[in-house]
């Protein structure tokens, strides 16, 4: 299957190993991977802050770029950015032509774990990683894309990994895009509940499907001098320690 990697601007600039790991995993399960270097951002920051006109222009570009591509699927290591692409039709509710184009792109765009499990029907990607770990449900993956069992199935098949459920795994980490800097005190108060749960889990690593949430959680763990690592699910699935 031919897939085009929509790596997200955050991963591209701040966490390139997540992109490299995604390529590694997709190739391992037999996909032919392409990357279009005209891609930038999915438009979520503007859309979520209320700047729809600005978001529309960036979304149009995204749609045009991937329309050119003949791949079977557009795959992204982000539930949140994938969900944004799924929201595109909302941006073009009053523009029949773009609405159609937006819907077509949305249908072809998948989050990584969802693509592996739902489309490719693969739950074991041959990964190995030793240690105790837990999973944080990133909100948009969980509630916009309904990803709950998919990442867990993938993680449970990682050899050597001991999976434990996090208390309130499905509660928000407090990131929320511009919310995290508009209301940093509230964002941190929410985050500290997540950190407490992670500490109680006594794990070596906390895994999630969105680099943004992991930056929020990881940033606090790092500030507190914690030894717990944050890991993107793509990195875990790419890992082959043994």
């Amino acid at each position: 299957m031919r897939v085009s990697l929509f790596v997200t601007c955050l991963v591209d600039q701040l966490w390139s190993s997540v992109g490299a790991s995604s390529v590694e995993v997709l190739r391992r399960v037999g996909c032919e991977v392409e990357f279009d270097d005209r891609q930038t951002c999915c438009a979520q920051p503007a859309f979520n802050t209320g700047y729809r006109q600005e978001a529309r222009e960036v979304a149009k570009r995204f749609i045009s770029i991937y329309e050119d591509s003949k791949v079977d699927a557009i795959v992204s290591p982000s539930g949140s950015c994938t969900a944004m692409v799924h929201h595109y039709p909302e941006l073009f509710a009053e523009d029949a032509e773009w609405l159609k184009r937006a819907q077509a792109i949305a249908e072809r765009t998948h989050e990584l774990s969802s693509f592996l499990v739902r489309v490719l029907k693969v739950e074991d990607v041959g990964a190995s990683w030793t240690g105790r770990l837990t999973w944080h449900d990133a909100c948009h993956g969980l509630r916009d894309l309904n990803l709950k069992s998919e990442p867990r199935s993938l993680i449970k098949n990682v050899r050597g990994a001991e999976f434990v459920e996090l208390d309130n795994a499905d509660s928000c980490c407090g990131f929320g895009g511009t919310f995290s800097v508009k209301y940093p005190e509230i964002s941190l108060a929410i985050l500290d509940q997540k950190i407490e749960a992670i500490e109680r889990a006594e794990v070596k690593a906390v895994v999630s499907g969105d680099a943004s949430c992991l930056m929020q959680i990881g940033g606090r763990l790092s500030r507190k001098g914690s030894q717990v690592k944050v890991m993107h699910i793509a990195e875990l699935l790419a890992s082959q320690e043994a």
Partner: protein
Amino acid sequence: MNHVTSETFDENAKAALADSQLRGALRNATSLFGQRRLAATKTVTDWEGLRTQARTIKDDVLLHLDQYLEKFVAHAESRGAQFHWARDAAEANSIICNLAKQRGARTIVKSKSMTTEETHLNVALEAANIQVVETDLGEYIIQLAEETPSHIIVPAIHKTKRQIAELFTEELGMAPTDDVDKLTRTAREQLRNRFAAADIGISGVNFGIAETGTIVILENEGNIRLTTSLPRVHIAVMGIEKILPRFADLDIFLKLLPRSGTGQRLTTYQSFITGTKTDKNAEGPEELHVVMLDNGRSRMLAHPVTRQSLACIRCGACLNACPVYQQIGGHAYGSVYPGPIGAVITPQLMGLEKTQQLPYASSLCGACREVCPVKIDIPRLLLHLRSEITEKSAPNVTSANPRTGERLAFKVWQATMTRPWLYELSGKLGRLFQGLVVKNGRIGVLKGPARLATPLTAWTSGRDLRPIEQQSFRELWSKELAHKKD
């Protein structure tokens, strides 16, 4: 903590975060109500199906509200109810004050009603020299403390047992105790006398049934039953959206509302009030007045996106589920409707100008939408309101509009994100300049001129930041990954 406004949400929130008693009370109560709700949803076979049915009914009501209101009024009037229409809060209050004055009323007992909180009825009644007593235990506590409710169904959720005990000692002169039964008994004794003496009882309305003209009110304490049956006059205050078409629809809504609100299968009392008493010797009030309140609702109804805000049945589940509400409680919102649904309704009721922080007071996590018994897409409504706010502030970009900087930033962002070369260049420039602030592979607390980068300062106030990679993914791709095919 009280009487703060939505305009200062950020300051209110900070004050709430610094209040450890408040946060302890909130943490206990919201998690308890959340767990109870979840357990209660499992006592019906098809919770999701019920939600869908409820929303379908509400959508139908909102699309044909005029017709359903006519039916409701006609049926209730035929049974002796008298109707009063209020365009806004002031009209509603003056109708009620006039009804009270005409009847020479001195004392009014009131049962819990968010609609009368919305109109600030108590203030109006007190200004007219009419004594009003709240009879719901939570509301009674709030009234004694001269505060406002901080939750839609648990008005005193922000108070600890100890705070309530101290309040009762101070205001009611009871001996200090932390025995909940003793506290409740004291309140009960105080209130019983009030019911007997009251000239008028004022209540809210949970549902108005169009086909019968029946008013339905749910409660647990029995105070609503007394409020609506003991005094000679009953005034019910009702938002115009509270209609259900058929009596049989209650089968769905009476399953959804108590489970979502308090995690109960059913409330202890359900009052069904259809008109006034028909027989002189029967029990119940001689007069039933229904005040129908618009106060911005028809404006919400007119808009296809915001219309769904009116499907809300005021269960409060979204408050308990909201990570923001869980931390700061209700008062910070500066509105009688706090939490996610409050952040949607308040700006629509009060206008965007003074409430524009509220739609941004959300991480858009979607927990509210997940628990909403009538499937209101609250995140979508918040996003809609955010876009309204930025569009409304657009003509003033040159003035002292607080969004000038933000707007400019998103213009620059748009220019960058639509030009890959500029996007790449920005990344590379970032790499160069971050050398000033990156230490041990991360960006920690900022010092000196770097603090001028406000969002970065806000982020690093409590979190470290990952620096920009020395090699972006696209560079990695073109150098290595593209060619390495296995």
